[in-house]
């Protein structure tokens, strides 16, 4: 009784899929779906397009086509467009302030060191990343100050009055947040502590520095702080600002860390307790690395805020980039009204820095957010 019915096994061959209807794919369908889905939307789209058409060519023409690119002084700006010569002539001032021209490599070196440490902290093998990068970070501000000041490392002394420009904004923000890091961690621990006095002191500190306008803090730094030191003590202006920024930042960062602490499952604490770790072993070896990881996006957001706030130094007369721009605008050789060019230039620099940092923070957040991805 053998099966005599024999044939080749039938291979299942699906018929080729029909192409999607023309009305649902392709650029025309996309345009119809996204720009003209209904009558009211069509009207809005046409209105926006009309505004864009009437604005963009003018802006592009002003910025690029009829702009003045070459030359060294105001006379070079002959056409109607933007006078980028102004920005070019002042660019060294904008970036480095009055730092001596032959010593600029020191500023560059400091910036390179900063970026090197940041890149290292992302690329080192995870097994010893924190153990290497945290000490590096904590040493960095003091190394940079030594390089820029010069006296300690045997270079020419450069007075802090000469430091300035965009590099000062970057370095000041970085130095403030780095030194604020350990402080804020302590405040956050204090706020979570079981000791009532420690907790209330931390709460008062954090809320004070978060609640006071940063400008008031700067005024306190420049007017009140000198009163706090013993008579005759001279504290450098930049150091005073630095102290203020550190306190300001540690208030905000303490809240960031508190959020991080709350995100750590209590099982982590219990597990650390159960293997007999001491409080500091538990905190530094188990909790801190996880807190840093989960609060990374918020740390970056706080840094962006601080970085934008360094512009406020203008009000107490520190020569940061905006202050230098105002000086340049009131210079008697450049009285042609180059305000728009200057503001656009500084604005674009800040925008690029802050936007890239917020993109980075979004990316880190997405990488961390592994369980909610759909």
């Amino acid at each position: 009784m053998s099966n005599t019915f024999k044939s080749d096994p039938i291979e299942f061959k699906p018929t080729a899929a029909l192409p999607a209807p023309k009305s649902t794919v392709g650029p025309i369908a996309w345009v119809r779906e996204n720009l003209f889905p209904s009558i009211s939307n069509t009207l809005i789209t046409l209105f926006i397009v009309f505004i864009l058409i009437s604005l963009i060519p003018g802006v592009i023409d002003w910025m690029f086509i009829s702009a003045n690119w070459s030359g060294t002084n105001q006379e070079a700006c002959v056409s109607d467009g933007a006078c980028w010569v102004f920005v070019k002539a002042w660019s060294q001032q904008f970036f480095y302030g009055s730092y001596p021209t032959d010593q600029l490599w020191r500023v560059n070196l400091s910036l390179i060191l900063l970026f090197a440490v940041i890149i290292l902290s992302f690329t080192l093998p995870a097994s010893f990343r924190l153990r290497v990068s945290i000490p590096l970070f904590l040493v960095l501000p003091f190394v940079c100050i030594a390089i820029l000041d010069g006296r300690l490392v045997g270079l020419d002394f450069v007075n802090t009055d000469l430091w300035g420009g965009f590099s000062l904004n970057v370095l000041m923000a970085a130095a403030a947040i780095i030194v604020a890091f350990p402080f804020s961690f302590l405040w956050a621990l204090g706020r979570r502590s079981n000791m009532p006095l420690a907790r209330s002191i931390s709460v008062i500190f954090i809320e004070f520095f978060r609640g006071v306008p940063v400008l008031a803090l700067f005024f306190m730094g420049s007017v009140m702080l000198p009163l706090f030191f013993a008579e005759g003590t001279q504290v450098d202006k930049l150091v005073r600002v630095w102290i203020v920024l550190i306190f300001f930042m540690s208030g905000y960062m303490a809240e960031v860390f508190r959020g991080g602490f709350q995100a750590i499952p209590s099982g982590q604490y219990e597990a650390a307790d159960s293997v007999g770790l001491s409080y500091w072993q538990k905190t530094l070896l188990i909790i801190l690395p996880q807190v840093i990881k989960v609060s990374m996006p918020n740390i970056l957001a706080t840094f962006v805020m601080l970085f934008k706030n360094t512009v406020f130094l203008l009000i107490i007369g520190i020569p940061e980039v905006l202050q230098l721009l105002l000086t340049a605008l009131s210079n008697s050789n450049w009285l042609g009204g180059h305000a728009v060019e200057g503001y656009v230039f500084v604005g674009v620099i800040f925008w690029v820095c802050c936007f890239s940092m917020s993109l980075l923070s979004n990316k880190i957040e997405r990488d961390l957010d592994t369980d909610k991805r759909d």
Partner: protein
Amino acid sequence: MFKQKTTEQIKAATRPTDTAAHAFYNNPKYRALIYQILLVTGLLYFFYTIISNTLGNLEAAGIKSGFGFLSNAAGYDVLMSLIPFESTNSYMRVFIVGFLNTILVSALGIFFATILGFIFGVMYFSKNWLIKKLSVIYVETFRNIPLLLQILFWYSAVLASLPGVRDSLSLGEAVFLSIRGLVIPKLIGQGGGSTFVYIVLVLAIIGIFILRSWAKKRQDATGQQFPVFYTSIAMILGLPFVAALLTGFPFVIEYPVLKGFGFNGGITVIPELMALTLSLSIYTGAFIAEAVRAGIQAVPHGQTEAARSIGMKEKKIMSLIVVPQAMRVIVPLLNSEYQSLVKNSTLAAAIAYPDLFNVFVGTALNQTGQAIETIFMAIIVYFAVNMLISFIMNRFNGNVELVGR
């Protein structure tokens, strides 16, 4: 850090010896006490040092501390004040003028920032690609540029390039915009009739609240809905209008008239105030838009689908299902944005808008040298305003919060 040990070894190493375990310094209670005593002593010593240093320094500089200077004549003029002010008035008066100006710019900023923020936040969810991108561009541009830069840009690049007073841009000969600011017509009430209209307006506002609670009670009891929104609008516009008609329209509109190099009459909005309000509301609006977006995104999609499946209209879904749930996320964020707007209003100092910080901490401090007193008073004000905002928003938050069962 830790070598591999057997369990027995670990037990042996960590088992407390009798003496150490009972030592008082290993008792967590005493330990906490000792740490706190140390902390407080350290802090007290710290404050003692800075206070004694400060007193010594003040004495050396010949500055008398105390609030006595508040009653001295200020001796300088303030660019703009909501209450009458002359340079012979006291520093206390300067303080009040500055405070009112801060409140004015903060209130305007909060108002416009909220409107901008909600419009652009909702625009993100538009089906129209262009509108969505417009919202993204707005948020990402203005959030990432320092506020001070924006203030200076509006003030010294945009508003400074407006035409002079004589060639002002005008809207129907009633509203004028020039380099000296914005001039708008002023509504002046006359006699008892106008007071009656104002009273009716206040009554209408109170009536709306009563109407709302009545409508809610009725809906809870009978399920019948009442068009509260349209009735409210009709009440707030209609009742004062009727009152005005009854009293024979007791108002005069004062139009600004160009005279010499300035305008007579009307309300003048100085360019400093315009620049500050513009930049504060655009900057904070970007953050609020982000908050609104986050709030709407936090509402699970199932909620919308469920509402659709029981046949609700799209408008009703938005107002009854999505927005109330989104508000739970939005309100706490709004709270902190409003507070930072008030704090950021201190940047008025950059363009010489006479807010509290500028006229009091800036000028008065320079003239009197009373650093600690002036800064202390200013900080107290900002704390108080922010606590008020926080209180109101928390009350509001209580209304939108999920009621736990």
